């Protein structure tokens, strides 16, 4: 069984693309080989900055002969048809056989495709893979038309058996496959030949190339950790950076340097961001003080001076970068101390948020109004929430955030504190963008929650008001993320909001707002003229004219947005393990626009369904419902007159009456108190009486009076159950 080794040697592959490319190479090659009839024992793919490699072990030496039988014309068909069939099957007419087929007989051809040696198949599949490789971005170079992520220089492709290695004959646009490769660009640039994967890997290591990205990452992490540990320090973990750095070097050499004392007082987030974004350095922290004191850089080579020149150069670049950061920090603090945080926010009137939704200042005005409205619902002081909303985005005008947009919020928190604002306001500045993703922390401080909700709800209602909703994979304003943020904020904090009404009011508000902007923008004489500064008093927007059509649009948009939130909620709950039919059963209930209530109901229902009583109750309900629905369909009446207990016959039926009385008595106050667990429990208690009832009693008896009474009794079962959740939506 031969082993296959492929290496695609190119100029530097972007770090972020390497892992995916290695996987794609493996997937596409093995798929192609298998489709061509080969099998293999195992495959592994690797990537370094300059190479993609694939090792396939235990490949079959050739594809099997394939025999395929094809049915042709019936016996007695015209000669031309039979000849044509033989030609299309690629066999002589004499080789056709007459065999039974259905009622008569038909001509059959047996087509034999002989097996092919692995080398030919590998060459063909590899050429196809190279030409159609799914790089996120690819390019041409020189005068050629081949596309690769960066110029492709060499292909190594060998099949290794006990007899030795054999180069797979292959030529792609003048790049001929061989059995040689090169080591480290600077430390071992000369070509060498290899005979197998083990040989390849070992020789690469001697030539200062670690083939396996994981090995490089481990090496970096362990070295960095040890160096820091030896100084009583710790490396700040950063998995994304580690993966990236491991993709930037073939031979990682870890070096640790000091940050000049001038910069140690910068906020740790600033140091970390500047070092990571600009230099791809790891931060090294003093665990005692929490301060970032050193950096770790990963060089791509060893040097005679043990990295001294490299480290000195890196430290110098860092000092220049941090001087910039310090300059921004000090300028920002000066602005805040002179004009306060609201002063810093001043320029936001000149920054457009969206040309139909106005400037950032307009947006902040809307968020402020909404935060004030939401505050009482989340236990925040309205004035404090409004103040926080007013300054939460002030840092967008800071120089630091201009340089590092990812520090928005974080800097706001520092500047709010520097401005002497209440801690709750500083926290809201810091936290109001959260949660940024499904696993990001959710704020719980009331003022933060009010501003975070107001921010996201304003974004959603604003874009719904101007009809810019996410479609398919396009979601340029991250509205799905905003929706998930609203959901997680509400659920985590148990926030109770009647969303339906609120969304209508907000969409209405944003629509009026946007009409004003549109009229201002369209009033501009032409794009060549100087843009005016647009400032609209948020409170005056109520004056914008809206028509009956607009009102219909607002209702539609708000309903659509609520449905969008429900969809996102379903996705979110499904990830939490809540069944989608359980959510549907609760969505159909009243007040489903109160997400917290909705989820409590769903959780109670899911919990009930996990009990034996609950599960069986649903069966009982379904049985009752089916019989009743059929009877109602047949009889054309609704059996909702109320069953008469005096007509009950036998203990089971009497017991069911009693049980329903008890359940109704328990469920109604429980629902009133929104105690869904108690309501579900009471409902589940019906299981035994219902089962016993069905066991002992026949519904459709000959006695019409008894039958009607029993159908009315089934109606009570249905009504009681449906008052808790729409069990008809559950899948059985």
């Amino acid at each position, binding site marked *: 069984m031969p082993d296959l080794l492929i290496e695609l040697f190119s100029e530097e592959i972007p770090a972020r693309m390497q892992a995916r490319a290695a996987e794609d190479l493996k997937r596409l090659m093995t798929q192609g080989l298998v489709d061509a009839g080969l099998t293999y024992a195992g495959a592994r793919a690797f990537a370094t900055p300059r190479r993609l490699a694939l090792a396939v072990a235990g490949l079959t030496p050739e594809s099997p002969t394939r025999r395929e039988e094809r049915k042709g014309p019936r016996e007695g068909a015209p000669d031309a048809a039979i000849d044509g069939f033989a030609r299309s099957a690629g066999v002589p007419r004499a080789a056709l056989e007459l065999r039974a087929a259905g009622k008569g007989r038909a001509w059959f051809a047996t087509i034999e495709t002989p097996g092919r040696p692995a080398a030919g198949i590998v060459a063909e599949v590899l050429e196809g893979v190279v030409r159609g490789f799914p790089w996120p971005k690819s390019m041409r*170079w020189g005068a050629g038309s081949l596309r690769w992520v960066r110029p492709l220089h060499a292909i190594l492709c060998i099949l290794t058996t006990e007899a030795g290695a054999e180069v797979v004959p292959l030529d792609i646009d003048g790049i001929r496959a061989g059995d040689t490769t090169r080591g480290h660009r600077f430390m071992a640039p000369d070509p060498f030949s290899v005979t197998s994967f083990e040989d390849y890997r070992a020789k690469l290591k001697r030539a200062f190339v670690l083939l396996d990205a994981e090995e490089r990452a481990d090496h970096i992490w362990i070295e960095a950790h040890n160096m820091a540990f030896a100084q009583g320090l710790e490396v700040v973990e950063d998995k994304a950076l580690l993966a990236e750095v491991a993709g930037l070097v073939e031979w990682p050499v870890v070096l640790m340097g000091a940050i000049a004392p001038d910069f140690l007082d910068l906020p740790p987030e600033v140091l970390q961001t500047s070092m990571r974004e600009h230099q791809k350095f790891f931060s090294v922290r003093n665990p005692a003080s929490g301060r970032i004191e050193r950096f770790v850089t990963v060089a791509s080579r060893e040097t005679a001076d043990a990295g001294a020149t490299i480290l000195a150069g890196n430290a110098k670049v860092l000092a220049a970068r941090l001087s910039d950061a310090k300059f921004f920090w000090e300028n920002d603090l000066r602005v805040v101390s002179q004009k306060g945080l609201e002063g810093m926010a001043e320029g936001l009137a000149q920054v457009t948020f969206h040309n139909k939704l106005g400037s950032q200042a307009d947006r902040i005005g809307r968020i402020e109004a909404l935060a004030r409205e939401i505050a009482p619902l989340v236990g925040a002081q309205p004035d404090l929430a409004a103040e926080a909303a007013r300054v939460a985005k002030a840092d967008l005008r800071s120089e630091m955030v201009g340089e590092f947009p990812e520090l928005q919020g974080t800097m706001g928190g520092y500047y709010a504190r520097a401005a002497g604002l209440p801690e709750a306001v500083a926290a809201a500045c810091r936290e109001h963008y959260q949660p940024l993703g499904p696993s990001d922390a959710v704020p719980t401080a009331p003022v933060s929650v009010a501003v975070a909700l107001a921010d996201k709800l304003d974004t959603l209602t604003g874009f719904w008001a101007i009809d810019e909703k996410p479609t398919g994979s396009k979601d340029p304003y991250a509205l799905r993320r905003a929706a998930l943020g609203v959901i997680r904020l509400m659920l985590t904090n148990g926030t109770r909001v009647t969303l339906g009404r609120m969304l209508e009011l907000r969409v209405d508000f944003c629509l009026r707002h946007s009409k004003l902007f549109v009229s201002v923008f369209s009033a501009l004489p032409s794009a060549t003229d100087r843009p005016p500064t647009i400032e609209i008093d948020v409170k005056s927007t109520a004056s914008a004219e809206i028509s009956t059509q607009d009102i219909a649009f607002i209702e539609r948009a708000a309903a659509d947005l609520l449905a969008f939130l429900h969809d996102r909620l379903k996705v979110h709950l499904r990830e939490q393990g809540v069944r989608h039919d359980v959510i549907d059963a609760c969505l159909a209930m009243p007040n489903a626009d109160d997400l917290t209530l909705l989820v409590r109901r769903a959780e109670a229902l899911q919990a009930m369904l996990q009990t034996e009583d609950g599960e069986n109750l649903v069966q009982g309900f379904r049985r009752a419902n089916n019989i009743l629905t059929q009877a109602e369909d047949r009889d054309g009446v609704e059996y909702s007159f109320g069953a008469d207990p005096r007509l009950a016959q036998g203990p089971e039926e009497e017991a069911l009456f009693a049980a329903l009385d008890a359940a109704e008595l328990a469920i109604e106050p429980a629902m009133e108190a929104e105690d869904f667990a108690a309501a579900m429990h009471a409902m589940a208690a019906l299981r035994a009486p219902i089962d016993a009832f069905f066991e002992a009693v026949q519904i459709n008896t000959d006695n019409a009076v008894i039958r009607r009474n029993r159908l009315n009794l089934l109606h009570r079962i249905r009504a009681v159950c449906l008052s808790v959740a729409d069990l008809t939506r559950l899948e059985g």
Partner: protein
Amino acid sequence: MADPAPRPKSFQEVILRLQSYWAAQGCVILQPYDMEVGAGTFHPATTLRALGPRPWAAAYVQPSRRPTDGRYGDNPNRLQHYYQFQVLIKPSPPDLQELYLGSLLAIGIDPAFHDIRFVEDDWESPTLGAWGLGWEVWCDGMEVSQFTYFQQVGGHDCRPVSGELTYGLERLAMYVLGVDHVMEMPFNDPAAPQPLTYGDVFRQTEREYSRWNFEAADTDLLFQHFKDAEAECERILAAAPEDDAGRAIVMAHPAYDQCIKASHLFNLLDARGVISVTERQAYIGRVRMLARKCADAFLTTEAGGATTAPADA
């Protein structure tokens, strides 16, 4: 790889070494384009010559202006006027990376002691309608060059592909010379009878232009100039391909000059902060439209490789 050259002594020596290195690799050494540009890429020897099938190899210094980067000469690293060294070779040779590393060796950067890396950086010029894939080249964590394989210019696919190298000369030279503040960098040999620093040459102009860029430039006039340049570019390109004597002369370069002007005027207006975020895109789009039309025109000329040039009357 060859041995590194000794360390240069001055800013100009770095430039001279790069020029002679690329001359030795067969490039024509051009002089700077005589117009204000934001980057060496704007020189028609790059923008226009990257188009069409004809081979090309050029290297040149290009003074470049980025009005928003002005810091009155105080910042150690930022200048509103600085120098780029630009190399453009079409088609990109297969050993362009090695040639590039050779140029580092020529200015005294020995890869045996430095960490040289190619870090992904895709280049895009929205105003030129151009993009390419490549890297920024890092030396010990510092970006010393941009390395790009041009894929499109002026909206046209580049066939063949040009390889473009851009060195930020001040930054590179400061590193090679071990200088921390650009104004302290020796411009000529410190042992010369009249040793002059970068500051001696440029500190005053940095201050003057910073003030002008940020405060004094007449924005109404700049807006007017922008419109004029745009209109003139369109007018030139709208002219018949034959002159009054009936000779086929498409005026791609004169039109492109107006495109360069519009682009620079946009940069000046941007520095004054009088272009809003939404307007910004519109202005960039207008310059791109000019660049695109100039590229279209260039491709109908001989240098652009037109095979069916209009017959000379």
